[in-house]
């Protein structure tokens, strides 16, 4: 894992590999927040990155079949941040899930499964690939 020291610009991408369990949510968040610090991004973008990472990692850790690792990479380029989350669980393409319709009332609102729509709406671009048994989701976020 490479996490930037506060007060100086990150020297490169954030790269970390974690065990495929729920603790990865908190560990990856702490690493992302430390890495983002020196970038001094707009607070809304930094918060959105934190939310997207949380949703991607928790989806793998909470819903997947056994996963031996979760790998997180983040890189920054001209105000945009690319988050890549990889795992060796069963194939799961978040792009295949239809977006829920906007709820008209409390009675008809979807209570669960809110994470994927949140990822899609917060990301400028979202890409899924699977190769050699590895899921790879890339989310690109930038200023509004």
């Amino acid at each position, binding site marked *: 894992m490479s996490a930037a020291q506060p007060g100086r610009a990150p020297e490169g991408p954030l790269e970390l590999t974690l065990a495929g369990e*729920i603790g990865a*949510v*908190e560990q990856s*968040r702490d690493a992302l927040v430390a890495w983002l610090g020196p970038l001094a991004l707009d*607070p*809304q973008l930094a*918060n*959105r990155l*934190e*939310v997207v990472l*949380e*949703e991607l990692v*928790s989806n793998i850790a*909470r819903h997947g079949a056994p996963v031996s690792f979760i790998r997180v990479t983040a890189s920054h380029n001209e105000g945009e941040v690319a988050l890549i989350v990889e795992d060796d669980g069963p194939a799961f393409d978040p792009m295949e899930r239809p977006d829920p319709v*906007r*709820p*008209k*009332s*409390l*009675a008809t*609102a979807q*209570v*669960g499964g*809110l*994470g994927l*729509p*949140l990822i899609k*709406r*917060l990301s400028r671009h979202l890409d899924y690939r699977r190769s050699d048994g590895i899921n790879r989701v890339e989310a690109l976020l930038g200023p509004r």
Partner: protein
Amino acid sequence: MDIEITDVDDVTKAVLMGRLDTTNVNRFETRFIDSLVPRGRPAIVDLGGVSFVASLGIRMLLSTARALSHQGKKLALYGANPLVADILETTALSDIIPVAATEAEAIALVTG
């Protein structure tokens, strides 16, 4: 994550403090729902002390609002900081659960 429950006239007021993230909501959701729903009264939730919300936190708020609605009672949110409000708006939660700026407005929304 912590919660303070008080009564404001006939309304239950819940003050949430901390992060509504996956880890905390998994530990906290049942306690939150049990603090509001069995009272069978309208409820307002002060989000001013909430620094982060993700989908499980939104699910917790939706589940609570829906359970209260089955009793004919409303729930309203207020005081969210701009970052939390951004996520509530992105999920369209604010379309179906009233969101107010102040406690007084939230009370008016659930008692009106």
